[in-house]
């Protein structure tokens, strides 16, 4: 065990997978000599050299599209998109090809690639550096979308993602990179993709969240700990979704709040609400509440605190479902 932050845990996962499997390579802007703008790939270039840790030209569509080709032909590329806001040029290659190659060739060609994307706001960053575009990926059938929230699950989920036979979008909550430390096993381990985890059990209400929002949810729940028994579900994977876990939880508590950082309309929270509605409507004691980013552009730093879900908003939503 070592106590690591999330960036270090990811670094360790990359290190160990590259050691284990020669076909794993890391590519992206500034991932090599610089070690990545968040230090996530630090030390990799020194250790594995420029053939396996590759500084690419500045072209996100190519990072994704070339990775598809690499993956088709026996490599396991782990591409990095430097920031969330620059992942949009990848959508065409993801939607048109990465997500479909297996299907299009009826299993003959596959795309075992990982695309790592630091995401989330709250770091007082420049425009386009604080986005939460997960919906865009979750809505594309054929992709997997994994969102770790703490160092422990980040390491295990990244290792599983690299070993996964299908394309995985791995969204790293950048404001958690250096904000949480946790005990992380030194050895390599996998955590199953497609499984949520219960962070804490409770009986009054279920709060469902993922990634960067988990920390905020915990704070909110902490503040209400005397008052309510709250169950927290950390989704971990957004596609495919572990419906069973959250449905069971909400069935038990009868009340739910879903917290996401992305804009509200058509967010992942909407999908969760819909599944609760479809499966266990009659178990609900109150309408499921969504606490989300507003349907606005992510504001520049001076106003970002008003955009981001915070413990206060989450607390109020919990009160709303409790007092319905």
């Amino acid at each position: 065990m070592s106590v690591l932050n999330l960036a270090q845990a990811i670094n360790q996962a990359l290190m160990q997978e590259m050691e284990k499997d020669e076909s794993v390579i890391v590519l992206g802007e500034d991932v090599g000599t610089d070690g990545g703008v968040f230090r996530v790939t630090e030390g990799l270039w020194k250790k594995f050299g420029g053939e396996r840790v590759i500084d690419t030209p500045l072209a996100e569509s190519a990072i994704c599209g070339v990775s598809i080709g690499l993956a088709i032909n026996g490599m396991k590329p782990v591409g990095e998109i430097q920031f969330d806001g620059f992942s949009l040029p990848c959508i065409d290659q993801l939607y048109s090809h990465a997500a479909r190659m297996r299907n299009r060739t009826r299993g003959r060609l596959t795309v075992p690639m990982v695309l790592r994307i630091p995401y989330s706001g709250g770091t007082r960053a420049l425009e386009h550096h604080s986005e939460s575009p997960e919906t865009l990926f979750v809505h594309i059938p054929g992709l997997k979308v994994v969102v770790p929230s703490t160092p422990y699950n980040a390491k295990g989920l990244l290792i599983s993602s690299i070993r996964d036979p299908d394309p995985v979008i791995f969204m790293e909550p950048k404001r958690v990179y250096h904000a949480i430390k946790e005990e992380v096993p030194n050895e390599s381990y996998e955590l199953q993709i497609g499984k949520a985890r219960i962070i804490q059990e409770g009986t009054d209400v279920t709060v469902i969240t993922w990634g960067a929002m988990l920390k905020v949810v915990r704070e909110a729940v902490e503040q209400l700990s005397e008052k309510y028994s709250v169950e927290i579900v950390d989704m971990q994977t957004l596609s495919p979704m572990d419906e069973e876990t959250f449905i069971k939880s909400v069935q038990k508590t009868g009340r739910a709040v879903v917290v996401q950082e992305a804009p509200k309309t058509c967010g992942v929270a909407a999908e969760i609400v819909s599944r609760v509605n479809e499966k266990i409507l009659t178990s609900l004691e109150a309408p499921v509440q969504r606490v989300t980013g507003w349907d606005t552009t992510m504001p520049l730093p001076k106003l970002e605190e008003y955009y981001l879900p915070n413990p206060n908003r989450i607390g109020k939503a919990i009160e709303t479902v409790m007092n319905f």
Partner: protein
Amino acid sequence: MSKKVSTSSKMIQILDENGELHGEIPKELNNEQIKKIYETMILTRAFDQTALALQREGRMLTYASTFGQEAQVAAAFALEKDDWFVPSFREHGVFFARGYPISQYMLYWVGDGRGMQIPKDINCTPISVPVSTQILHGVGIAWAMKLQKKKNVVEIFFGDGATSKGDFHEGLNWAGVFKVPCVFICQNNQWAISVPRSKQTASETIAQKANAYGFEGVQVDGNDVFALYKVVKDAIDKARSDKGPTLIEMFTYRLSDHTTADDAKKYRDEKEVEVWKKKDPIDRLKKFLLKKKLLTEDENKKIWEQAQATVDAAVKEEESMSPMKSEDIFTNMYAEIPENLKEQIEEAKRVSP
């Protein structure tokens, strides 16, 4: 109109419109292989004609013809067994030259997903409809080869229209930076649906675009199998010996409509088509073969008959295949079917028509 089309003075040609040689036949091509190329071109055209007929009868989807571009076959002949090709959607001749089963290929064009379940012994990606996007895959495939220290190469096909897209640029730029073993083959057939080459880019030739990426570009008479084979083979040799990529502008012409959904008369002058018909790659090679007494009119007729018979048999085979099952929608989305899809499979069964 055809005068507007710009060709560089350095366009490479060996076999002219009259079947006359203006240079050496590439040494790798013996008479047998030349005839094999010829036969494959005819097979391609027979497929094309059959496909057009089937489409008119509603037995095929929208179909993109290769009529006039069959010399592409020569590019495929320059590949070795384990080399790859990365097609766009107008490379029927390349598929056939590489041994892709015609009946299976036909399956794709009737809208059956099994059409692109590529046989294990053929290294290629499936037909790629979104223009230019496949270029990046080709670069990645070639790069993988280099990283794995394999000595194989990749031919990447696309059209003149494709050169306008960002993926073309990013792909060629990466290929230059990482010196990957691939050959970019632009089938410049002068049109992108209704948009002529002159409106696609203000650059005089497409070949010269390679200069922006630090490697060589070559413009070649794309209806001349000898010249095409030669420049492609040279580029492949170069790539195979780790000297980096090449862009080849295969200067040819789309003699047909863009697809069966298109009517080219609306936007292009028939006279231009007439000019190009005289440059037909099959006629040209035929003239050469006849002159060299490598072919008789009689043999020629047999080749055509054989080609048509092969295609007809393939159509029959394709049309007699059992259909896919409705659940096949759900399989192959992932290596393992996730829970929500299992549920949807059940639901689909419950509600299916």
